[in-house]
């Protein structure tokens, strides 16, 4: 539309390009405007997002504590060290377990609850708002709430005992065999409302006529759900999985506040490992290598996911992810 309007415009602004300038070629005025409009955003974005990530790649090739001269080039040794260390291997496994559990537990839970809540219940609006409440709290506040709830002999334990389930009581955050699942439960508490809201929005898009038609054809409730509703929720589910896996891979706040990755590294994630080595032990080179690994894992997952899963929804799904 700009092209069509340009001849008109050319006459109006005082800074119009000299007569005879080609329409397609941006004039000086337009270029100045573009620079003015795009410059600040680019400066901030490149300066504080792209450059730091690029620099991480550079630092990762050095043994460096973040303070002295950057002169101990060691090539890919940091990467080799990271991958050959059992703690980091464990961290990757922990991230994958959380991601896997999200898909196996949180997703069906969210779908089921969204379908149940999609009825014309009284007070539905209030209900939705309350279900969403944990999602708006910061992860830090969430973590503190649950640290307090899960104290040995505390609220959670007393409720379990009161319900006759005293045998379930555990050292929720101190038992290496349990801690990761405790953290997963906390994360589920915080994020399940997000899934429900997304899926409820998706369900709004399922025309009632379709269900009625299926029911008229003699389909059971389960068959209707399986063959009509779920396929139509496909795009929502695929986006949910994407966001959930990326979030699981970057898990930090809740873990750091609740366990610092302990006990005995039983809940270390890639991100807590990165912060621990980078900022607590001043291994900036090594920490950068971990950051690059985390980045590559997220990036490869995102590309593959877009290629094989999201592509079915829309062309250029990456851009539609939030738009």
């Amino acid at each position, binding site marked *: 539309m700009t092209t069509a*309007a340009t001849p008109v415009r050319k006459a109006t*602004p005082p800074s119009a390009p000299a007569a005879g300038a080609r329409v397609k070629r941006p004039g000086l005025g337009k270029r100045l405007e573009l620079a003015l409009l795009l410059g600040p955003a680019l400066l901030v974005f490149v300066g504080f997002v792209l450059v*730091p990530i690029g620099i991480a790649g550079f630092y990762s090739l050095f043994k460096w504590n973040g303070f002295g001269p950057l002169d101990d080039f060691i090539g890919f040794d940091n990467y080799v060290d990271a991958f050959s260390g059992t703690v980091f291997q464990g961290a990757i496994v922990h991230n994958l377990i959380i991601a896997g559990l999200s898909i196996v537990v949180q997703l069906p839970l969210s779908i089921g609850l969204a379908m149940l809540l999609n009825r014309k219940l009284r007070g539905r609006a209030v209900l939705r708002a309350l279900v969403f409440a944990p999602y708006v709290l910061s992860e830090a506040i969430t973590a503190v709430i649950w640290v307090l709830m899960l104290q040995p002999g505390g609220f959670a334990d007393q409720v379990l005992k009161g319900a006759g389930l005293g045998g379930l009581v555990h050292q929720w955050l101190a038992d290496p065999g349990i801690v990761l699942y405790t953290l997963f439960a906390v994360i589920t508490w915080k994020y399940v409302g997000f899934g429900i809201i997304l899926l409820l929005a998706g369900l709004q898009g399922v025309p009632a006529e379709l269900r009625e038609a299926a029911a008229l054809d003699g389909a059971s409730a389960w068959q209707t759900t399986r063959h009509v509703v779920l396929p139509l929720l496909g795009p929502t589910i695929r986006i949910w999985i994407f966001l959930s896996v990326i979030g699981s891979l970057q898990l930090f706040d809740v873990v750091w506040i609740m366990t610092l990755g302990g006990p005995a590294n039983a809940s270390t994630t890639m991100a807590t490992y990165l912060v621990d080595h980078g900022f607590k032990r001043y291994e900036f080179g090594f920490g950068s290598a971990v950051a690059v690994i985390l980045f590559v894992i997220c990036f490869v997952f995102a590309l593959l996911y877009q290629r094989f899963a999201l592509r079915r929804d829309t062309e250029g799904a*990456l851009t539609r992810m939030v738009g």
Partner: protein
Amino acid sequence: MRSRRFGLSMGYLAAIVVLGVTVVPLLFVVLGGFRTNAQINSAPAGLPGPWVTDNYASVLGSGAFWTFLGNSALVAVIATAVAVGLGSMAGYALSRYHFKGREALYTLFTLGLLFPLTVATLPLYLWLRQLGMLETFWGVAIPEAAFSLPVTIVILRPFMHAIPGELEDAAVLDGATRLGFFWRILLPLSAPALTTVGVLAFVTSWNAYLLPLLVFNDSAHFTLPLGVATFQSQYSQDTARVLAFTALSMIPALAFFVLAERRIVGGLTGSVKG
């Protein structure tokens, strides 16, 4: 008919379970703040009896809470203003100007959606140290705005693109420059989308923990999430006070959510209309 009623009662049952699981922890915190440590120790899941207001009073009177609150607000306002300001300018350029490399630039910004802040923290920290931005609110707000820019632009560009070109032509005929059109017509028309991206940027910044953790050492600069976590580990013996502190910290987020619910949910669900 019978199965419909059955479905409805299952719906109510689910609603009650979900509500319980969601709300009980929040109630535990709020009510816990009205109890004494002795009460909490003897009956962790009990109700206040008698109700005690000392914990809340001491938190509200200590100043630390207000400092954290003010810092969070300041950082979030700066981050939101920068993200929305720069994002809307870039969104305008990317949606209504024709120039070489426009799509490449847009792709560059969208790629930012995949860059987690965690990955960039180490160099970002060094970068901020070099720029002398450690212990400053800008040091947290600007990077947070930078990481909010991709979402902002990705939401704003299609919105601005959809505004009819005739409006622009008319404005130009009336003597407006392109920048005048942007300022006087496009921005006001984009208000719904601007509110959505503003709310998202604000909430992201308000809830951020990692970046403030690295940038701020001085507790006078702490934001609320950082303050809550620190307070909890500092006063771990004084559970009642930690509960009161946490309960008060939840209020701004929940209140903001009540005010901006449509924008938050709309911004998130708008994401999956595909």
